[in-house]
């Protein structure tokens, strides 16, 4: 067993863990933060996406012991108290979900993605990767969100919600 302190959504928790426990399992099974979902458990679906120091990662492939000292944000830490994050509101408004299972991962992934885009990061569909900034077209949003699958097929609503949130942030 390894003793670590994990910072999740601004609060620190002391944990006694086996090294093989994934960050996803620790969040769900030990900390009761069941918003983060387990889909494939092999990094293929994105349902387990959380933010580590603001960067999106697959918590299923992350060993929790590796993330001691990092700032983890889960879907439970996205809203400001009772007030949903504008992206969450946009997901509701645009029907960016049906069953909702992939939604926490979609929201966390989109937050990480918007930060990457704001920092000027190109994507695989960016025509000129050396450009300092890239317009966030629907094609860019789809490519950048390809690590999050939605088996209900709510992609059009997801893209619309992200686009609207990005535009709102720029205004």
């Amino acid at each position, binding site marked *: 067993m390894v003793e670590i302190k994990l910072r999740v959504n601004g609060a620190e928790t002391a944990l006694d863990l086996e*090294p093989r426990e994934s960050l996803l399992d620790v969040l769900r099974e030990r900390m009761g933060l069941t918003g983060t979902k387990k889909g494939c*458990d092999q990094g293929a679906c994105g349902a387990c996406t959380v933010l580590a120091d603001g960067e999106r990662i697959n918590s299923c492939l992350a060993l929790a012991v590796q993330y001691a000292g990092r700032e983890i944000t889960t879907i439970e830490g996205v809203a400001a108290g009772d007030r949903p994050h504008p992206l969450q509101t946009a997901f509701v408004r645009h029907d960016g979900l049906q069953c909702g299972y992939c939604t926490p991962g979609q929201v966390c992934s989109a937050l990480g993605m918007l930060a*990457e885009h704001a920092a000027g990061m190109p994507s695989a569909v960016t025509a000129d990767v050396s450009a300092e900034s890239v317009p966030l077209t629907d094609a860019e949003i789809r490519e950048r*969100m*390809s690590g999050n699958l939605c088996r209900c097929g709510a992609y059009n609503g997801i893209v619309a919600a992200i686009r609207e949130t990005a535009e709102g942030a720029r205004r």
Partner: protein
Amino acid sequence: MRDFGYLRATDVETALHAITAEPEARFLGGGTNLVDLMRAGVESPGTLIDITALPLTGIEETPDGGLRVGALVRNSHLAAHPLVRARYPMLAQAILSGASGQLRNMATVGGNLLQRTRCPYFYDGAARCGKREPGAGCDAIGGLSREHAVLGVGDACIAVHPSDMAVALVALDAVVEARSTRGTRRIPLTGFHTAPGTTPHVENVLAADELITAIELPPSPVAAASGYRKVRDRASYAFALVSVAAAIEVRDGVVARVRLALGGVATRPWRAYEAERSLLGARATEAAFRTAAAAELAAAVVTPDNAFKVELAERTIVATLRDLTRAKDTA
């Protein structure tokens, strides 16, 4: 997953001594491949030496105008670096075409080079796989082999090396810096990954106690106008059926410099030397591109399932070179 010991190293010396002391230990970087393989039971190290706290995260310009990249730089950070995007666009494109945003944020540059094949028989403990179990044979040969290699294959293994990043790096003549308690050595990436031969479980020349500490990119003026083209079964987040990393410089209509490498078709990141030889000094025409592509694929050994990759690779090489030379004409 089998339980294992965990050690977090904060300096390189500690990590190197730990791996020397424990032959069953493995280094843990981003974990995107190793953790998955441990869960599948393919890998079962006794101890993981976590190297992500080591100070190997810098990207620095070298005195000769090249780039030195710390082994623990995350894939996404390398792709986003302004000097990579300006001077080696094929490398940024190759990285961005691989995996997902989440995985690129986790995966390290050193780990990307060491990632193992996604051959389903390698993952399936009930199948015969000489990569997983030395000498066990190969169920991919004569099995479902649509995604398997046509270049660099042997009687013991036809598994594809899955990396996109490494394809661009072999085209760019990158050099791997590796350290052990015995010292530091520099290994050209073109000689880093090995052919499967009769020992497909051996995938590179790295010793078990060696740690990749950096990747060095030599200056490469031709790479400023380069590209990476990836063909796959879906538009994003899939491994390559065929990929091409290319840089070409045309002077007075003649190919003056060219770099070409292939992914998705070979057992290791494949530098296309035959095609380069064919192109150098030739007129930069589509016919010459076709001749060069055919010269490279002449050595292909196919199965009924993956024979299509030969034509697909040839067409993708031609299309990539055509795009690059057209872009030049209009510049």
